[in-house]
C-alpha cells in the first residue's frame, strides 16, 4: 500500500503546463494503483478472518502509534473498489476538465491513496489521520472545479464531517487509556467497557460515521456537495467516501462497543428506515438529476446501515454487497448525468426529453444503470437489497415490509426521471444537437456495466471473500464485553 502511495505522489510531481502529459501520467498512476491492488484479491485467503498483508512499523513511539496496515475480508473489496473508481474518474475527467488539469488529477490520485489508507489502517491514529486528510483533497475538488454554489457546499461538507471526526478523536484517546496505552484497533476490540463508557463511545463514533454515511438527519451536506461537485468529485463522493462511514461502523462501532450497539440498534434501525422511506419520497420530487441521485444514495445507504444493525449474516453481507454495488451504480449514474451535463450544461430534468433519439447508445447504458439503481434482478443492485430484506424479515416482518418499499420508491423515482429525460419527443434544440457518446465514454460506461451485471448474476466471488470475516465479526458482536 505504501508503494501505491509513493507512485501517487510521484504522479503528482509532473505539475507543469503540459496538460496532456499530466493526464497520461495520472492515468498511469491510477492504473498502477489498481494493478498493485489486484494481488490483494488474487492472493487473498478467504478462509481466515485474520488480517492479511499486514505491514507494521513503529511510527511515533512517543505516542505508541504504529504504522500498521492490513486488510481482511471486509476492507479488501473496498480497496479494489477505490482503485477502480479512481481509474474511472481520471478517464471521465479527461476532456471535461480544462483548467488546472494537473492539480485536478493530482487531487484525485492523492485522495485515492489516502482512502486506501483509511480502509487498510489498523492503528487508530493512523486511521484518523487518513480519515481527516481525505477531506482536504475533496474540499479542494468541490471548491475549485464545482458549480456556482461550490464554496458554500465545500465548506459545509468540510465542517460537517470535521465535527463528527473530532468527537471520534476524543473517543480514540479515551480508548487509548482504557486499553492500557494502545492505539491498535484490534486491541480495542478485546477490551471490556462499562455500559456508560460504551454508550458515550457509541455516540462519538456515531457522529463521525453517521455524518459520513450519511444517515438521516445529518445528511444535508450530501445533496449540496453532490450538486456542486464536478462529475468526478460526485463519483468519488458517492462511490467511496460514503462507504468509509459504513466501514467505520463495522470496524469500530460494532466490535468495540457491542453492548451499546445492541442497546441502540432499535434507534439505528429507525434512522435507517427513515432514510429508506422518507428520503426515497424526497428523491421523488427532485427537479435536479444530481440531487435526485444524491437522495437515492442516502436511501441506499440506509439499507446498508439497516443490514448492519440487525446482526445476522444475511443483513451484514447484504449491506456489504449493497455498498460495493452502490459504488458502481451511483458512480455510473453520476457519470451518465455528467455526460449529459457536458453537452447541455444543465442538470434540470425539465431541460431534457427525448434524449434516446439523439443518443441511442447512451440511452441504453443509462437504462441499465437506472434499472440497477431501482434494484432490478440480475443487476448488482438487487442482490444487496434482497439479502438485506431477507435478513430483516428474520428480525421483524414490519421492518422488512418498510424496507421493501424502497423497491417501489426506487423504481418510481429512477424510472420516472429516466422516462422524462430519455423518452418522448425531442424537447428543445439543445437535445436535438446532442452527439452520442465517444469511445472514451463508451469504455468507461461499459466497464461499469460489465461489473454491475457481473455482480448481479454471479456475486459469489465477492461474498466468498467476505464470508469468514463477517462470521467472525458477528460472533464477536454477539459476545458481550460488558464490565460492571
Amino acid at each position, binding site marked *: 500500500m505504501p508503494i501505491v502511495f509513493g507512485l501517487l505522489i510521484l504522479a503528482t510531481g509532473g*505539475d507543469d503546463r503540459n496538460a496532456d502529459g499530466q493526464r497520461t501520467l495520472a492515468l498511469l498512476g491510477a492504473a498502477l494503483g489498481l494493478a498493485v491492488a489486484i494481488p490483494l484479491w488474487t492472493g487473498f485467503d478467504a478462509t481466515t478472518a485474520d488480517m492479511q498483508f499486514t505491514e507494521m512499523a513503529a*511510527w*511515533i*513511539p*512517543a*505516542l505508541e502509534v504504529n504504522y500498521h496496515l492490513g486488510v481482511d475480508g471486509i476492507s479488501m473489496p473496498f480497496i479494489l473498489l477505490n482503485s477502480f473508481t479512481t481509474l474511472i474518474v481520471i478517464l471521465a475527467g479527461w476532456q471535461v476538465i480544462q483548467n*488546472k488539469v494537473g*492539480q485536478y488529477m493530482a487531487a484525485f490520485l492523492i485522495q485515492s491513496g489516502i482512502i486506501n489508507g483509511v480502509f487498510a489502517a489498523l492503528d487508530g*491514529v493512523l486511521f*484518523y*489521520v*487518513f480519515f*481527516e*486528510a481525505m*477531506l*482536504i483533497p475533496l*474540499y*479542494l475538488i468541490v*471548491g*475549485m472545479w464545482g458549480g456556482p454554489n*461550490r*464554496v458554500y457546499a*465545500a*465548506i459545509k461538507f*468540510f*465542517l460537517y464531517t*470535521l*465535527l463528527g471526526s*473530532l*468527537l471520534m*478523536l*476524543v473517543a480514540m*484517546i*479515551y480508548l*487509548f*487509556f482504557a486499553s492500557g496505552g494502545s492505539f491498535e484497533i484490534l486491541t480495542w476490540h478485546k477490551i471490556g467497557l462499562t455500559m456508560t463508557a460504551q454508550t458515550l463511545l457509541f455516540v462519538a463514533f456515531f457522529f463521525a460515521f453517521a455524518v459520513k454515511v450519511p444517515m438521516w438527519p445529518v445528511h444535508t451536506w450530501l445533496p449540496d456537495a453532490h450538486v456542486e461537485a464536478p462529475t468526478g468529485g460526485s463519483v468519488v463522493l458517492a462511490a467511496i467516501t460514503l462507504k468509509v462511514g459504513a466501514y467505520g461502523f463495522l470496524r469500530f462501532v460494532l466490535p468495540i462497543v457491542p453492548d451499546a450497539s445492541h442497546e441502540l440498534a432499535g434507534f439505528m434501525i429507525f434512522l435507517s428506515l427513515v432514510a429508506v422511506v422518507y428520503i426515497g419520497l424526497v428523491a421523488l420530487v427532485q427537479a435536479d438529476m444530481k440531487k435526485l441521485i444524491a437522495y437515492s444514495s442516502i436511501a441506499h445507504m440506509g439499507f446498508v446501515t439497516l443490514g448492519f444493525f440487525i446482526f445476522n449474516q444475511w443483513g451484514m453481507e447484504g449491506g456489504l454487497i449493497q455498498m460495493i454495488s452502490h459504488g458502481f451504480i451511483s458512480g455510473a449514474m453520476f457519470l451518465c448525468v455528467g455526460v449529459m451535463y457536458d453537452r447541455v450544461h444543465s442538470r434540470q430534468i425539465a431541460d431534457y426529453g427525448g434524449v434516446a433519439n439523439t443518443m441511442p447508445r447512451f440511452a441504453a447504458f443509462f437504462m441499465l444503470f437506472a434499472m440497477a439503481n431501482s434494484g432490478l434482478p440480475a443487476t448488482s443492485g438487487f442482490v444487496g437489497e434482497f439479502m438485506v430484506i431477507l435478513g430483516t424479515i428474520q428480525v421483524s416482518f414490519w421492518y422488512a415490509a418498510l424496507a421493501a418499499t424502497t423497491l417501489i420508491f426506487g423504481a418510481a423515482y429512477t424510472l420516472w426521471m429516466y422516462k422524462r429525460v430519455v423518452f418522448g419527443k425531442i424537447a428543445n434544440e439543445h437535445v436535438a444537437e446532442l452527439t452520442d457518446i465517444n469511445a472514451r465514454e463508451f469504455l468507461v460506461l461499459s466497464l461499469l456495466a460489465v461489473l454491475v451485471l457481473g455482480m448481479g448474476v454471479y456475486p459469489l466471488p465477492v461474498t466468498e471473500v467476505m464470508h469468514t470475516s463477517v462470521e467472525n465479526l458477528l460472533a464477536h458482536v454477539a459476545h458481550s464485553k460488558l464490565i460492571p
Partner: protein
Amino acid sequence: MSFQMPDILPALPEIFVLSMACVLLLVEAYLKPKTATYLITLGTLLGSAAITVFTGMLDPVYTFNGMFVDDVMGDMLKLMADLAAIVAMIYSRQYLADREMLRGEYFALVLFAVLGMMVMISASHFLTLYLGVELLSLSLYAMVALQRDSARATEAAMKYFILGALASGLLLYGMSMLYGLSGSLELSKVARAVHEGTQSNMVMVFGLVFVVAGLGFKLGAAPFHMWVPDIYHGAPTAVTLFIGTAPKLAAFAFAMRLLVDGLQPAHGDWQQMLAVMAVMSMAIGNLAAIMQSNIKRMLAYSTIAHMGFLLLGILSGSLAGFSASMFYAITYVLMSLGTFGMVIYLSSAGYEAENLDDYKGLNARHPWLAAIMGMLMLSMAGLPPFVGFYAKFTVLQSLVGAGWLGLAVVAVLFSLIGAYYYLRIVKLMYFDTPHADAHPIAMAGDARILLSVNGLAVLGLGLMPQALMALCTASVQFSYW
C-alpha cells in the same frame, strides 16, 4: 563576608548575546554600516544557539546563588527561540529595508529581546524572572514604536506599554505576596513553603491569582488578551512576526517556571484558573477571528485561541502534558513564522498585504506559495497530516489522561469553529479569482527558500513527528523528573 565568583558557564549564551548586543551598538554608532548589523545579529543568534547546544548539561545546574538555572528544557527552548529569531530576521530583511527600518537600533532591540527571553527561560528566582520579562517587554514596546511617523504603530506601542506595565504590576504584587508567605524569592523555596502549608492559605491563593493574571497578560490568554489584536495589527508586520513567534516560547517557559517550579504544590488551585482561562481564550479567540477582515488581526485572535490550547497541556500537570505543551509551543512558533512570513512576502514596498482579500486567487498567481500557505492554514486548524494536528492531539491526550474528558470535548468543539476561518483563507486562495490589480510578488531569494523549507517542515514534521516529540518529552523529563 567573602565574595564567591559564581559559575558563569551555564549562563554563557546569555553573556554572549549581551556582549554582542553592546558590540553591535558600538559598531552602529561609530561605523554607520549598511548591512553589517544585520549580519552581526544573525551571527550572534547562531553563536548563541551553538553555545547553548555545546554547553548543555543533562542535569539542571543552578548558579548565581540559585537565581539562574540551566536545564535541558531551557536549552531546548533557547535553541528554538534563537532559531525562530533567525528565521524572523531573514523573512523581514527586505520588508525592513523597503521601509527604512533596517537600522542598528532595530537589531539591537532584537538582541535585547532575545536576551530577555533567554533570561526568562533560565530563571529560577522571582527577580530573574521579572528581569527577563521586563527586558523582553521593553524591547518589544520600542520595536512596535520604531516606525515613528505611523500613527497606528505609535498607538499600538502606547497601548502595549500601558497594559504591559499594568500586567507587570499585577505580577509584582503577586510575587510580593508569595514572598511574604515564604520569606524567599527563590522558586524552589517558595515551592517548599507552599508545600509545607504552614502559612495562611488565603495569602497564597491571593498571590497566586495575581501571578496567574500577570502570566495571562504575557501569554495573551483571555480575559487578559485585549492588547493582542491591537498590537498585532498596529505594529509593522516584521515586528508582528517577531512578537508572534519567539516570545511565545519564552511565555511557555515563564508559565512552567512560575507554576511548576514555583507553585507546583498548589496545582489544584491554579489548574482551575488555567481551565477557565483556556476555555475563555479558545472561545474568544476562535469566535472573534471569524469576524476579522484583516489577516493580522485574524491571526492575533487565532494566537489567543492557540495559547488557550497551550494552557490545557500545562494544566493537565503531567509529564505528558508539559511535553505536549512544549511541543505545541514549538510547532505553533513554526507555523506562525511561516504565516507571518507569507504576509511579509506578499507585501512589497509601500504596500501591505494584510487584508484577507489580498489572498484571493493566490493559487492562480503563484501555485507554490498558495500550497505553502494552504499547508500552514490547515496545520493551524489542526488537520492531519500536518504537524498542527499532533500538537492538538498530544495536548488532548494528556488532558484525557489527567481525567479532564469534558474539557477535551470543549477544546475539540472550539477547534472545529477555528477550522472555519483557516479554511476561509484556503477558499480565498483556491476558489476565488485574483484582483486585476494585484500587486506583483517580489522578494529576496533567501527568504523564498526559507519559506518553502518552513512550509515543508510543517508537512514533514506532520508525517514524522517522532523526533521532535521525543526531544520535548526528554527535555521535560530531565528537567523535572
